[in-house]
């Protein structure tokens, strides 16, 4: 059987991913089978959330840091609903509009996960937002917070806009992963600017490769990236090492596949599952869409052409062909 991907590692994502064996996903030094990260917000109840998380196949789930309710509401706690042995919990800094607040929230989240002994304890999904209406990231604040958190030992997974220059700056500041937005958080608009996402991927992955190689090798590598042939699997591994996740804006499964087909290493989403009419069914769809997009990317799509190319042979046709 043809081996897609070609990097070492264990298991694929269950039955749907036979030819994907070995295509594991390394994020902040840890290896995952699933390339889909899902949020835990906005579910109508915890039962649906648990079922949807399981159906998504996700191994990393995001959470938010918020004030304890001091009025005794006897509400159920999220932490009682999540299997902490199964999921890596990725705390976010959602709701922060300054680097300073994001750093505070990241430290608070880490403190809780350290108490729980969860593997996500040193991880943070960094969000420094610029404005409440669009929830678009503040690039300057994001950069400042990344530097500060990296210094403090965090694995920073940074939410950014799809601007390729900011993306590279954030990587240079030490982020473990850069996560360009497809479109505004919760907007369901999908990947609005595919070209920018491709440029983010190129910038983040090419600079990674270039820093590792010199001289002729760099030239060869650059040509290889430009041709996007990716025949040589070791070369491919070198250019794809830095993880890039499309975070935010997904509305439907096709959006996930598009992001993965562009070459993203993973997709992070929440609302598209939580607010679907049937969240559990949508979670299944998202899981399959992630795998389909990844396989399609690795398989290598055909070029787009203006005119048709017949799939059936012309030779031997018994009909009249106009223009012949």
């Amino acid at each position: 059987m043809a081996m897609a991907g070609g990097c070492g590692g264990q298991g694929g994502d269950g039955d749907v991913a036979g030819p994907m064996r070995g295509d594991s996903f390394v994020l902040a030094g840890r290896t995952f089978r699933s390339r889909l990260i899902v949020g835990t917000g906005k579910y109508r109840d915890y039962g649906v959330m648990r079922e949807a998380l399981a159906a998504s196949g996700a191994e990393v789930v995001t959470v938010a840091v918020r004030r304890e309710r001091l009025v005794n509401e006897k509400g159920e706690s999220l932490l009682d609903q999540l299997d902490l042995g199964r999921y890596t919990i990725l705390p976010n800094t959602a709701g922060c509009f300054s680097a300073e607040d994001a750093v505070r929230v990241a430290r608070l989240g880490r403190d809780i996960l350290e108490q729980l002994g969860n593997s996500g304890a040193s991880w943070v999904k960094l969000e420094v937002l610029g404005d409440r209406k669009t929830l678009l990231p503040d690039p300057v604040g994001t950069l400042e917070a990344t530097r500060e958190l990296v210094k403090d030992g965090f694995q920073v997974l940074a939410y950014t806009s799809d601007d390729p220059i900011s993306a590279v700056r954030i990587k240079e500041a030490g982020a473990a992963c850069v996560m360009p937005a497809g479109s505004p958080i919760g907007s369901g608009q999908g990947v609005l600017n595919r070209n920018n996402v491709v440029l983010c991927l190129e910038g983040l992955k090419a600079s990674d490769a270039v820093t590792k190689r010199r001289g002729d090798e760099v030239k060869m590598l650059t040509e290889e990236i430009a041709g996007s042939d990716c025949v040589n699997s070791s070369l491919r591994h070198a250019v794809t090492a830095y993880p890039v996740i499309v975070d935010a804006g997904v509305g439907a499964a096709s959006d996930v596949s598009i992001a993965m087909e562009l070459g993203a290493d993973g997709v992070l989403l929440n609302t598209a599952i939580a607010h679907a009419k049937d969240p559990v069914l949508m979670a299944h769809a998202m899981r399959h869409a992630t795998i389909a997009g990844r396989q399609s990317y690795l398989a290598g799509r055909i070029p787009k052409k203006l005119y048709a190319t017949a799939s059936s042979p012309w030779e031997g046709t018994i009909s009249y062909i106009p223009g012949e």
Partner: protein
Amino acid sequence: MTETVKIMVNGEAREVPARTSLQALIEQLGLGKAACAAEVNRELVRRGEREGRILQDGDSVELVTLVGGG
């Protein structure tokens, strides 16, 4: 009459007896066993340091937990 100090807890004004520790406050609020993190005046106070952190007049305390989010 017991002396008290005025503090803010999660944005609400409260009065606690003087020399109350952060740990004692957390326990009084029923959060002794909860997985929560604490900040005093915007600085994280780890679990092991809560007992020794005596609340002063004007201190601002934040007690947070993890909730659903994206």
